[in-house]
């Protein structure tokens, strides 16, 4: 003690107390423990190793016994902007020239689903929030072609939607015989304008869509679609597949007024996307024309497409699934970085050399975070490369992500590992017992994902807060796909769809790490080492 006091008085002091020295000391500690360095390397390898497991294959034996992988049925349907889309609905249509309009009155929309998921069972009545029925002008009946539509929905009032990602609200409220809705679309070249009305005389403009390259002879008509229900998903705790139940919607139209069609044309019905899209099996879609009314029944969705939800195709986030395995190795090393020192009494030497305890903790956090980030960055990059190569080799098309999405995903994954390591450091300093600390951090980071995510033990709604409020929220940095308000998708992290925006989820994790570090600093000062 006396030796220290005299030394603090000397000129050496400034150098001794330097934060740089402290960082150097912590780096030396980390570097020279072989197990920790190996642990970090193992973490990086684990992140990549998941992609060495043989993956799924798409395609199959062709005629002549030749196996070809890939093909259109293995790829997600692409919309006019190159984005993945869901395009599956029942379409009652006639050709329309470059100038024309369609006006209808909708008097009812009802929904149903088959409870057991198997066809032929008694149908239960249930309208989905985003069940859709209305009028549509579409470039062709090919799935993924450009369109603009006016529709009534289950719970979101009248909407105008076009080209899968665009959405504009119209009249609120549900449609019924007492409150019918008039819908109108007018086409003038590439521009389609949508109107709605509650009485058929006073019209309000809802939106205008420009569909570049809309052919002169487009298809115009009535449609009905109802998405797979995520709320009716049958759960399974052992990780068996859980699938949504397909639903269907039936809408009744009358006063159909179609202009700009060839004189002799008649209605024809098409199950757009039917059969090619396993997620939306056609459920007896069709139309009837009793008198002046027209009843259309359909299943499916016209919406942005997400991996796992609307057909075959891999996700970019799936290539980073190894993060979980790597994370556990990181957490073990991070916890031991502090608990080993506490247990072996080395902390007394450390604190004698640098009595400001918070600075010691800060130096540890910085060194650990930097080392983890440096290990995680190349690992995440390699994982993305190997994963995409694997999916390509299996003939699986990856759902396209917007340009430069992969950069924040890779950097975000490395940052996620780094902040998680700091969180583990803090909890290790608080609990002091390495086994308990490792378990606590793993439980906080992996279990919420486990319960709410791929193994889906909890129902989608009730489990929503788990991946939002716990440190596991940080995984949303692997969000690969934009979130659309007009899409009810349950968060499935394995598919790259998280309940929070990337920065928000990362902020939640940072908050937890800061809390743990703060508590650790407080206790480190209060407790004897």
């Amino acid at each position, binding site marked *: 003690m006396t030796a220290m006091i005299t030394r603090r008085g000397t000129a050496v002091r400034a150098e001794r107390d330097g934060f740089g020295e402290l960082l150097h000391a912590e780096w030396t500690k980390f570097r020279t423990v072989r197990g920790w360095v190996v*642990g970090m390397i193992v973490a990086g390898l684990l992140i990549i190793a998941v992609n060495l497991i*043989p993956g799924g294959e798409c395609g199959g034996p062709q005629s002549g016994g030749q196996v070809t992988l890939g093909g259109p049925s293995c790829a997600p349907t692409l919309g006019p902007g190159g984005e993945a889309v869901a395009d599956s609905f029942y379409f009652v249509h006639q050709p329309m020239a470059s100038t024309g309009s369609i006006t209808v009155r909708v008097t009812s929309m009802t929904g149903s689903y088959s409870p057991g*998921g198997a066809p032929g069972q008694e149908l239960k009545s249930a309208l989905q929030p985003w069940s859709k029925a209305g009028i549509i002008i579409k470039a062709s009946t090919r799935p993924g072609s450009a369109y603009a539509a006016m529709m009534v929905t289950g719970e979101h009032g009248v909407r105008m939607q076009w080209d899968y990602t665009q959405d504009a609200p119209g009249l609120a409220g549900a449609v019924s015989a007492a409150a019918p809705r008039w819908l109108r679309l007018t086409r003038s070249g590439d521009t389609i304008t949508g109107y709605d009305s509650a009485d058929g005389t006073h019209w309000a403009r809802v939106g205008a869509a420009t569909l570049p390259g809309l052919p002169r002879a487009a298809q115009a008509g009535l449609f009905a679609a109802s998405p797979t229900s995520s709320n009716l998903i049958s*759960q399974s705790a052992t*990780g068996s597949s859980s699938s949504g139940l397909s639903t269907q919607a039936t809408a009744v139209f009358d006063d159909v007024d179609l202009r700009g069609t060839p004189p002799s044309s008649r209605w024809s019905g098409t199950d757009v996307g039917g059969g090619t899209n396993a997620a939306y099996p056609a459920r007896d879609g069709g139309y009837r024309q009793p008198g002046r009314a027209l009843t259309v029944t359909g299943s499916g969705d016209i919406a942005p497409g997400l991996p796992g939800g609307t057909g075959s195709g891999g996700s970019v986030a799936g290539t980073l699934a190894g993060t979980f395995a790597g994370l556990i190795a990181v957490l073990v090393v991070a916890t031991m970085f502090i608990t080993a020192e506490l247990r072996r009494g080395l902390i007394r030497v450390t604190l004698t050399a640098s009595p400001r305890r918070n600075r010691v903790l800060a130096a540890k956090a910085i060194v650990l975070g930097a080392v983890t980030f440096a290990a995680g960055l190349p690992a995440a990059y390699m994982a993305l490369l190997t994963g995409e190569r694997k999916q390509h080799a299996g003939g699986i098309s990856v759902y396209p992500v917007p340009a430069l999405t992969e950069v924040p995903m890779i950097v975000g994954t490395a940052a996620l590992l780094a902040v998680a390591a700091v969180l583990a450091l803090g909890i290790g300093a608080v609990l002091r017992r390495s086994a308990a600390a490792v378990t606590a951090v793993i439980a906080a980071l992996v279990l919420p994902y*486990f319960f709410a995510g791929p*193994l889906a033990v909890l129902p989608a*709604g009730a489990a929503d807060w788990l991946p939002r409020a716990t440190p596991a929220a940080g995984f949303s940095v692997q969000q690969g796909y934009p979130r659309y308000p007009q899409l009810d998708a349950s968060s499935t992290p394995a598919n790259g769809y998280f309940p929070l925006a990337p920065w928000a989820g990362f902020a939640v994790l940072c908050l937890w790490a800061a809390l743990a570090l703060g508590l650790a600093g407080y206790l480190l000062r209060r407790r004897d080492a």
Partner: protein
Amino acid sequence: MTQAPPAQRAHTADTSRPPRASMRDALHAEWTKARTLPGTGWPLLAAAALTVIVSAAVAAAVRCPSGHCAEDPAKISLTGICAGQAVIAIVAVLAVSSEHSTGMIRVTLAAMPRRATVLAAKAAVLTGPVLVTAAVAVPGSVLAGRLILPGHGIGPAHGHPDPSLASGPALRAAAGSVLYLALIALLSLGIAAAVRDGAAAIGVVLGLLYPFPIPGQVVGSSSWHRHLEQLAPMTAGLAIQATTGLRSLPISPWAGLGVLAGWAAAALLAGGNLLRLRDA
């Protein structure tokens, strides 16, 4: 490190007088250690409480308004096992690693040079309290499910199998869950004996349990997915909890528990051999 090896060597080299320590003595010694450590009872109590609480919370969260969901009441009631097993794993890991970290293991091995006997005694002494804990946690979870689930549209009144212990499959699910927790404890013990360090051991155990099935979810290949579920200790072992949809299970209930038993045996074998081969 400087003291123990010579003493130990002297002990083992003395073949004319074989060590008197029998399995009974080893059991007694391990039991005394476990009994007198202040930190043994609380984690087990916490494991039981966590299991019941998580089970009840999941049961309370599951809704089936239409009464037509493909839910498995027994499985929902026993979801807490997924969380409780982590605490059981800590207890099992600490039973070995705390001796290594304090150096107590040298005393133990000096007194009981047959290392396989020591590990076997540890396994036996651990299994008893874990079985007792599970025998409290599992019926508690089943009871919670029984009380909560019928109010949420899941129960015999809605065509679901009876989750109470009166029915055969439900009894198998409950008894199997007790065995599952015991096997998880043995697996953790074996891994801890092999890895020695507590933090690393718990990392390996939890890494083996939780993220193992995740790649299977992502790879998309149904055959590999199935193989992973048949192979992973947790997904295979928890097949014992299924009472509905037995045909769609990746592995039959008892075979699944057998896979977990295989993991536990392999871990104990590896741990026992490494304990024999390495310096303590």
